[in-house]
C-alpha cells in the first residue's frame, strides 16, 4: 500500500468517505433543490387547478339565500377576497406549515383525516408492492434466462396481457373467484377499529393486496426481463464466466447489482403509481383509504380535503422519487462519481 502510489494501485484509500463526500453531498443538495422546486411547481399547479373549480370556496360556508354582507364575511374568512398573488403566498405558507385547513363538511382538520386514511393506504400499497417484487423478480429473471423454453415465452405473454387489464377489473375478477365462488375472503369492507385488530385488517387487505401485486408484477416483469437480458449480454458476465465462475455464481455476484440500477428507479415510479392507483382498488373493495377520501371529497366539493389529499400524495410521490435516486447512487458507484455532472 505504501509502495505503490499510482492511480490503479490505491486499493481502498479513494473509497474512504471523506474523499468521496463532496461529490455525493453536492448531488444530494442538488437533488434536494430539485425536490423543493418540484414541490413549488406542484403547489402552483394545485393552486391554479383549485381556482379553476367552479364557485367561490366561500360558498361552502354559506347557507342558501345568504345576503351580501354574509358573503363578504365568508370571503374575508376564507381569504378569497384577496388579490391572487397574496392568496398564493398564503397558500404556499400554509402548505409549508402542513396546515391544510379543515374539511368543509366535517369540520375536522384535514391533516388528521389524512393521517387516519394513510394507515389503510400505506400498508395496502407497501404489501402490494412487496408481493409484486416477490412475484416479478424470479419470474422476470426466469423469462430472460429461459427465453427459449415454453415457460419463458409464457411468462412474457402473460405479462403482456397484464398491462392491458385495468386494475379494477382484476379486483372484480378476484372477488368473483375468491369471494363469490370460493368464499375464502370478504368481497370488501374494513374493520371499524382498524389496526387494533391486526388479523381482521390483514384478512380484509388480502384481496386488495393480491390485486395490486398481480397488476404491478405484470408490468415489473417486463422491466426485470429486459434488465436481465442486458446483464446476460454484458462483457463483465462473460469475463466472470471465463474466469471460472459458474453461470449462477456470475449472475448472483455481478448480475444482481448491475441489473438493479435501472430497476430501482422503475420501482420508485411503480411504488408512487401504486400509492395513487390505490384510489381505484380502494373503491373496488370499499376500503377507507386516501383514495376514497379524495373521491368523497370531489363528490361533496370539499375543497380543503381535495387539496390536502392531492398535496400529500404529490409530496409522497416526490419523496419516493428522491429516495429512489439516492438509492441508485448507493448501488452504483459509477453514478456517484458522475454525480456532480448530471443532475437527474
Amino acid at each position, binding site marked *: 500500500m505504501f509502495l505503490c502510489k499510482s492511480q490503479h494501485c490505491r486499493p481502498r484509500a479513494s473509497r474512504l468517505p471523506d474523499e468521496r463526500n463532496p461529490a455525493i453531498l453536492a448531488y444530494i443538495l442538488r437533488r434536494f433543490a430539485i425536490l423543493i422546486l418540484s414541490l413549488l411547481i406542484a403547489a402552483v399547479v394545485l393552486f391554479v387547478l383549485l381556482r379553476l373549480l367552479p364557485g367561490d370556496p366561500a360558498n361552502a360556508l354559506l347557507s342558501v339565500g345568504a345576503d351580501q354582507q354574509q358573503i363578504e364575511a365568508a370571503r374575508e374568512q376564507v381569504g378569497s377576497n384577496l388579490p391572487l398573488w397574496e392568496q398564493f403566498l398564503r397558500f404556499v405558507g400554509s402548505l409549508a406549515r402542513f396546515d391544510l385547513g379543515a374539511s368543509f363538511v366535517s369540520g375536522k382538520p384535514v391533516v388528521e383525516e389524512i393521517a387516519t386514511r394513510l394507515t389503510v393506504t400505506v400498508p395496502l400499497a407497501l404489501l402490494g408492492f412487496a408481493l409484486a417484487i416477490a412475484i416479478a423478480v424470479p419470474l422476470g429473471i426466469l423469462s430472460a434466462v429461459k427465453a427459449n423454453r415454453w415457460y419463458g415465452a409464457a411468462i412474457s405473454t402473460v405479462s403482456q396481457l397484464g398491462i*392491458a387489464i385495468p386494475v379494477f*377489473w382484476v379486483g372484480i375478477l378476484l372477488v368473483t373467484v375468491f369471494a363469490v365462488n370460493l368464499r375464502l375472503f370478504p368481497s370488501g369492507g374494513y374493520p371499524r377499529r382498524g389496526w387494533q385488530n391486526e388479523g381482521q385488517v390483514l384478512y380484509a387487505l388480502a384481496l386488495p393486496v393480491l390485486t395490486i401485486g398481480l397488476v404491478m408484477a405484470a408490468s415489473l416483469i417486463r422491466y426485470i426481463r429486459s434488465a436481465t437480458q442486458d446483464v446476460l449480454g454484458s462483457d463483465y458476465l462473460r469475463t466472470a464466466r471465463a474466469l471460472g465462475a459458474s453461470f449462477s455464481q456470475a449472475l448472483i455476484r455481478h448480475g444482481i447489482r448491475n441489473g438493479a440500477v435501472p430497476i430501482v428507479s422503475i420501482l420508485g415510479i411503480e411504488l408512487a403509481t401504486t400509492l395513487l392507483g390505490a384510489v381505484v382498488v380502494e373503491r373496488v373493495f370499499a376500503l377507507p383509504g386516501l383514495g376514497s377520501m379524495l373521491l368523497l371529497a370531489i363528490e361533496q366539493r370539499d375543497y380543503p380535503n381535495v387539496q390536502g389529499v392531492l398535496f400529500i400524495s404529490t409530496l409522497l410521490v416526490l419523496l419516493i422519487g428522491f429516495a429512489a435516486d439516492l438509492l441508485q447512487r448507493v448501488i452504483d458507484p459509477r453514478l456517484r462519481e458522475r454525480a456532480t455532472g448530471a443532475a437527474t
Partner: protein
Amino acid sequence: MTALDLSSDRPARRHSLALSIGLALVGLNVAVAILTLFCTPYDPLNASGGRLEAPSLLHWVGTDRLGRDYLTQIMIGARTALIVGTGAVAIGASIGVTLGILAAFATRLLDDVMAATLDILIAFPTLLLAMLVVAASDSASLWSAILALGLAISAIVARLTRILAKRVLRQDYIIASRTSGTSWPGVVVRHVLPNIWPTLSVNFALQFGLAVIAEASLSYLGLGAPPPNASWGRLLQEAQGTVYTAPVGAIAPGIALVALVIGMNLLADGLRDVGDPTRGRSR
C-alpha cells in the same frame, strides 16, 4: 422510403402476425361501434327481458338489473371507448407535437424549463389529473374526460416529440435543406414530421389503449359520462353490485375492454416492427 421496402422483408413479415391480430381486434371494435349507430340487438335504454337474466339465446350475455340487454350495452360501450381513445389521442397529439417541435427549436434555457416541467407533469398520474379536470367541470361528461386524458397524453407526446425532433434537426440533410432555401416551417413539414412519424404513431397506439383504460377507470369511479352513455367502466361498476347473482355481467365488458387494448398494443408492436428496420433485424 426505406420503411416501405422493408415491409416485404423477412423479419417484418414474421412480426406482422401481431399487426394482423391487432388490426382484427381493433377492426372488430370499429365495426361494432359503427353498427350501433344504425341498429342494436335491443333498445339500449328500456327493459327487454327480466332482471338479471342469465345468458340465453335471446340475450347472449344476459340482462342487467333493470332488464336491459347486456350485449347491446357492451356494443355501445365499444363506441364510447373508440370516441374517448380517438379524441384523447387527437388532442394529445395536436398539443403535444406542437409543443415538442417548439421546444426543439427553443433557446437552451427555455428548452430546459420546458423539459423539466414536462417531466413533473408526466410524474403526476394521469388518473388523478383526469379526476381533477372532471371535478373542475360542472357536470361530468364524456368531453371533460376526453379533454383531461388528452392533456395528460400531450405531456408524454411533447416530451417524445422534443427528443425525436432534436435528433432529426442535428442531421446533415437539415443543413442541406436550409441551404437550398427551405424555410424552417418547410423543414418541419418536409423532414422532421415524416421522420418522427413512425415512432410517434407507435406511441399514439399505446396511448390510445391507456386512454381507454383510464376512461373505464373514471366511469368505474363514477366520474365518467352520465348514464345514457354506456361505458364499459360503468357497466362493470354496476355489475359488481350484482356479482353474487349475475357474475357474467362483471366479466363480459372487461373482456371487450381488454380485447380492444390488447389489439391496440399489438398494433403498436406491429407498426414498430414494420416501421423500424433496425428493430426487425436484430431479432
